[in-house]
């Protein structure tokens, strides 16, 4: 498993009027090459912030307060202006959370595509650009002729999302970040889009990072999962492993909180309490106020992450060292 | 040109000798195009109609260069000169005028006596026609005016004729309308009712009057769209903001015309006018700005000279006697005692002259001593500011002053008065504001309403304000005590003060207003006079001494009845630009002494020369004594 992106000790802060907001807190995270990695977590847990850090596109008051990000062996944080232009969208591209609003409402899709090309390589002729766009649109099962000449508002939500996927592939990136690509779409469209994504992944061998809070989607699409909670990556590992044997109490509860079509529905329970206020973080493990295993240490100290050889990682005081993870696994 | 020497430097350097003679073409330095730049106003095209009698006319200033009358007179001095009339002579019942024989209309047609006759037949409402029985033209260059019996005294006859500054129209152009008017007049029967008056002593029936008016209206619409006159300059071009007049080559006095063109600009905004003056873009400008601006203009442009003169008109306030308590003489007098005229004058028109003693006399204050006997003047009540007197008078009529400093009327009510003033008239508005402040400060709350000038006058005539601002002690037309008395008792002042009229019962028993003044007052000798009668008989009184007596009495009555206050007599002035213009500048020897800010002239010749510069209106000025430099 060769890592494409390695995030180490990443901390991102937003200075706000009410105080300093840590959206991502000393997070470690690895995106293996050629796989679909999912990052799950509740709203506000820092998924998008982490992704935008990888894209070097943290929104205005935000700043990286510590840690590093390497992409294919290069330090992303130290890229110069020129390199950055060649990095963004050409190496890493993104499908945005609110695809509905990610297109300029007053420009035709075609113009926006050409604009994107122009911003990067000037060697393409307009025809080449349009041809490439046509192929991609065809690929995401849209009618290129109609879509290219449309304004965003003339497309349905599902169509816009697919246009955005085509957009992300325009410059043959190595990594595509999919930020909740299907929220606000209905089930059938959602399934359909995942079909397309999986096909793209297979055909083009593109590494993908999928940000979502829908456990079902993770199960369906991802090879590897990371779980975020209040800015911390609390657990990460292989998808089967995670679903069958979640380690972190939060992960376990999260899995349990999702109703399923096929399993027994009688005993499902939500996680009590609510996610912490990032401006008023409790000391210690951020999950401890909602955790039934919490003990004294949890209230004082944020647990350190432990890694198992099998590529599983977890940050919880229940697992003081790698062996203990295995222990629990067997028990 | 700040670095170029100014007028004072040039005078000191002895560079002024050329100013007494027309400058040879080769020596013209600053005004090579020989254009005379002035300001003027006219209706903007397409409103401009080319007929001076049409609506909006062709513009007052402009007319001076395009039209002439039989006579020409300086309004404030009452000097009458011949113009198109070569000479004239009076008999008891006639005035005969001989015309210059080489005068041409701008279109080339000769000017004849028929053109004068045409004017009065067509424009039969002109004042003088009321005193005439007929006009005869024995030949092309002679006109005989036949006066009614009795005839007005000789001086008045001349003034009546001279006030028609454009007493002729081109008969060859307007023949159709003149003949029609003449025919209509011939239909009328002679007047029998002596209390009425009509043109040429004719009884114009309502039906006839309508026909005459219609004919007049058609005449005003008739072409040509450009004015045709006999004046030194003829019309060339007009836009909304500029008018060009061109030298009339066939002018009968070719030597009097030194400029090739007159360029008239229409600039309504006062600050813009000042700016033009300062920039030296006008050769002549009439008007006197507030003191500080005047001084700064002179300072900034060293070529300008400013001449100052009295305007035969005063700014004043009239009490509306229709409203209580203004019907009470003592109240009016009390208010008059409150006013501090010096302050009113300083703010209203700094260079004006206040006459603190009088209230309102019907006579231009600066000629009061000339027109009214000294003994009468001495017997007039002195209204010089006197707050104690004012308070005393108020108390006499039952008013009391509260501890808050406000006066209360006999009913115990605090009054609140409104002074009305036309809003575009700065001297009036500004001084009225100060008057309001003085009344208020004295304890009689008063506010000013500066009203849009077009409604102001009809509102004031209807008595909508407690006090109204207007020109007072002023004569429009020509300068004569009788003329200014007319304004007081018969015209503008009458309606604003609200003198009563004679009421008559008509056939149905309804009361009708005859429009005739109903004012009977005690005169200086203690006898009661019917003012209307006195005024009516005045023009026919041939004896000068008797005329003076009538005026003495009327002036005294006016002052005693205190119908209004003369704030100050207006001062006006004229600016000359000596850089582009040379000529016979008045008071040349004193220019250095006063550094071009000339004081009121005392010498009669100088006075006259300066009055020539600023004709006021109703007189004609031609730059014949000035030439390009």
């Amino acid at each position, binding site marked *: 498993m060769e890592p494409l992106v390695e995030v180490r000790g990443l901390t991102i802060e937003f200075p706000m009027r009410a105080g300093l907001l840590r959206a991502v807190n000393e997070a470690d995270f690895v995106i293996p090459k050629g796989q679909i990695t999912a990052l799950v977590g509740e709203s506000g847990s820092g998924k998008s912030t982490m992704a935008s850090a990888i894209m070097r596109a943290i929104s205005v008051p935000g700043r990286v307060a510590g840690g590093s990000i390497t992409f294919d062996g290069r330090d992303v944080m130290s890229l110069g202006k020129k390199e950055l232009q060649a990095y963004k969208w050409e190496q890493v591209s993104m499908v945005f959370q609110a695809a509905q*609003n990610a297109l300029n409402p007053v420009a035709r899709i075609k113009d926006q595509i050409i604009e*994107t090309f122009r911003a990067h390589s000037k060697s393409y002729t307009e025809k080449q650009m349009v041809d490439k766009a046509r192929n991609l649109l065809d690929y995401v099962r849209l009618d290129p002729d109609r879509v290219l000449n449309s304004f965003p508002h003339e497309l349905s939500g599902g169509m816009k999302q697919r246009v955005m996927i085509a957009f992300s592939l325009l410059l043959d990136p190595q990594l595509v970040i999919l930020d909740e690509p299907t929220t606000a779409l209905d089930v059938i469209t959602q399934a359909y889009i995942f079909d397309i994504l999986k096909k793209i992944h297979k055909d083009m061998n593109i590494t993908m990072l999928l940000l979502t809070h829908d456990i079902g989607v993770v199960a369906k699409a991802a090879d590897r999962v990371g779980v975020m909670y209040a800015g911390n990556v609390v657990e990460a590992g292989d998808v089967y492993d995670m679903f069958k044997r979640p380690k972190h109490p939060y992960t376990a509860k999260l899995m349990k909180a999702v109703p399923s079509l096929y399993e027994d529905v009688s005993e499902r329970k939500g996680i009590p309490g609510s996610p912490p206020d990032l401006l008023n973080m409790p000391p210690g493990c951020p999950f401890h106020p909602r955790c039934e295993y919490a003990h004294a240490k949890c209230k004082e100290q944020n647990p350190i992450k432990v890694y198992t050889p099998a590529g599983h990682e977890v940050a919880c005081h229940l697992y003081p060292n790698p062996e203990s993870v295995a222990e629990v696994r067997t028990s | 040109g700040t670095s170029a020497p100014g007028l004072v430097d040039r005078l000191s350097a002895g560079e002024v000798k050329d100013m007494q003679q027309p400058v040879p073409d080769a020596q013209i330095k600053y005004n090579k195009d020989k254009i005379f730049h002035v300001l003027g106003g006219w209706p903007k095209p397409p409103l401009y109609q080319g007929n001076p009698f049409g609506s909006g006319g062709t513009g007052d200033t402009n007319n001076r260069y395009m039209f002439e009358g039989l006579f020409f007179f300086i309004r404030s001095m009452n000097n009458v000169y011949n113009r198109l009339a070569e000479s004239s002579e009076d008999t008891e019942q006639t005035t005969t005028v001989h015309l210059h024989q080489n005068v041409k209309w701008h279109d080339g047609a000769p000017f004849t006596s028929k053109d004068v006759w045409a004017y009065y037949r067509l424009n039969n409402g002109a004042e003088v026609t009321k005193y005439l029985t007929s006009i005869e033209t024995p030949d092309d260059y002679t006109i005989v005016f036949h006066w009614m019996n009795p005839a007005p005294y000789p001086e008045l006859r001349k003034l009546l004729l001279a006030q028609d500054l454009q007493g002729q129209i081109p008969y060859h152009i307007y023949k159709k309308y003149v003949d029609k008017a003449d025919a209509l007049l011939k239909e009328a029967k002679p007047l029998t009712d002596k209390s009425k008056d009509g043109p040429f002593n004719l009884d114009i029936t309502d039906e006839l009057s309508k026909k005459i008016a219609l004919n007049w209206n058609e005449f005003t619409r008739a072409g040509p769209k450009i004015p045709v006159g006999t004046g030194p300059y003829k019309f060339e071009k007009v836009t909304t*903001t500029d008018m060009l007049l061109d030298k009339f080559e066939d002018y009968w006095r070719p030597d009097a015309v030194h400029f090739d063109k007159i360029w008239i600009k229409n600039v309504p*905004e006062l600050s813009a006018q000042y700016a033009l003056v300062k920039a030296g873009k006008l050769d002549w400008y009439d008007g006197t700005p507030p003191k500080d601006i005047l001084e700064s203009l002179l300072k900034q442009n060293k070529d300008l000279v400013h001449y100052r003169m009295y305007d035969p008109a005063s700014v004043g306030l009239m009490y509306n006697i229709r409203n209580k308590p203004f019907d009470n003489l003592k109240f009016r007098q009390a208010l008059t005692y409150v006013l501090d005229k010096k302050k009113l004058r300083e703010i209203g028109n700094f260079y004006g002259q206040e006459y603190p003693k009088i209230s309102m006399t019907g006579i231009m204050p600066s000629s009061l001593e000339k027109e009214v006997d000294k003994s009468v003047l001495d017997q007039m009540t002195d209204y010089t500011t006197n707050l104690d007197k004012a308070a005393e008078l108020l108390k006499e009529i039952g008013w009391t002053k509260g501890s808050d400093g406000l006066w209360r009327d006999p009913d115990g009510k605090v009054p609140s008065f409104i002074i009305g003033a036309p809003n575009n008239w700065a001297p009036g508005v500004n001084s009225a504001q100060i008057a309001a402040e003085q009344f208020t400060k004295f304890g009689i709350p008063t506010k000013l309403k500066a009203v849009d000038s077009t409604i102001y006058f009809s509102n004031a005539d209807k008595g909508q304000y407690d006090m109204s601002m207007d020109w007072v002690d002023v004569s429009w037309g020509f300068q004569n005590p009788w003329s200014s008395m007319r304004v007081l008792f018969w015209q503008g002042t009458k309606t604003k003060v609200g003198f009563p009229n004679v009421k008559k019962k008509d056939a149905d028993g309804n009361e009708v207003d005859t429009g005739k003044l109903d004012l009977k007052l005690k005169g200086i000798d203690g006898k009661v006079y019917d003012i209307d009668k006195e005024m009516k008989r005045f023009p026919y009184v041939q004896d000068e001494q008797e005329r003076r007596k009538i005026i003495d009495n009327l002036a005294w009555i006016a002052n005693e009845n205190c119908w209004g206050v003369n704030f100050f007599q207006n001062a006006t002035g004229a600016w000359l630009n000596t850089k582009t213009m040379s000529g016979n500048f008045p008071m040349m020897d004193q220019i250095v002494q006063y550094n071009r800010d000339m004081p009121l002239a005392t010498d009669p010749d100088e006075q006259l020369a300066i009055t020539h510069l600023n004709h006021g209106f109703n007189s004609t000025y031609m730059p014949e004594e000035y030439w390009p430099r």
Partner: protein
Amino acid sequence: MSLKGVLKRIGVSLITVFLAMLLTFFLLRMTPGSAIDTWARDFATQRGMSLEEAYRQITAMINYNPKEPIFTQLGRYLGGLLHGNLGMSMIYQNVSVNEIIANALPWTLFVLSVSLVISFLIGINLGAMMAFKRKTVLDPIISIYAILTSSVPNFIVGILLLVIFAFQFGWFPVNGAYDPIVEPGFNLPFILNVLYHGALPILTYVITTIGTWALTMKGSAVNVLGEDYIVAASIRGVSERTLMSRYVKRNAMLPLITTLAVNFGFMLGGSPLIENVFSYPGMGYYIGQATQQRDYTLMQGLLLVTSIAVILANLASDLIYAKLDPRVKLEEG
């Protein structure tokens, strides 16, 4: 945009104009004083007769009777309107209102549209810049400028400009729409001369309105900057210049288009003061004249034309809006 919708809009506009006309008609007849008063006053002095007599003669002359029932007057007026005849001016007896408007309207439209376009374009660019580069000196400078210029009446600014540029430096003419020396027509000297004369009035409008445009635009642009598509585009690597022009400006401008029409109407109605300062022969001059002298017919005609212009401006702004914003369909409204 449905045809029916457009027709309906036009229909409603027509009715509005008609009612506006009725409103002004009745208002005008209700006001004290009329052009006849002024005219009679002149006539009386000119012809040396009493005011009553002059009044009588004049009403006979122009076949106008103020005591005539108001509906008869209205009927006559409407009859004329049907033939496109706005009647004759009352103060200028042989000039038709049509002629006056034909002379005045082009000048006002010229000055207003040029200054509106200029100030709009500069304003939105400044506004966009203020929004884009938040922490520069530009923002406070323009804000204060906008506040100051909106608190000083615009004709005072006009006078100041006149004093400085026309008199102090003599760069621009003092008054008028063109020099009497040039020949009016479609020739270059004339056009240049017209521009030269229009410069100061235009500048006055531009100076006094630019700040407000900039502030409004800034507000709008700040909102747009927060939109997802801006972030998305900048991540896609779209250059700042493109972002500014094609994304921010284009979108932020949209709500201002409607204001454009409103401003147009406002300026049309408010032009008398400025046109007076520069002696500019536009509508404002005649509106001022007609109002002052109570020339009903002239005023009526001018107000009618102004209302139509305002409504047309509104319609135009809707069309422009629809053109610029593909999302809008003219159905509603």
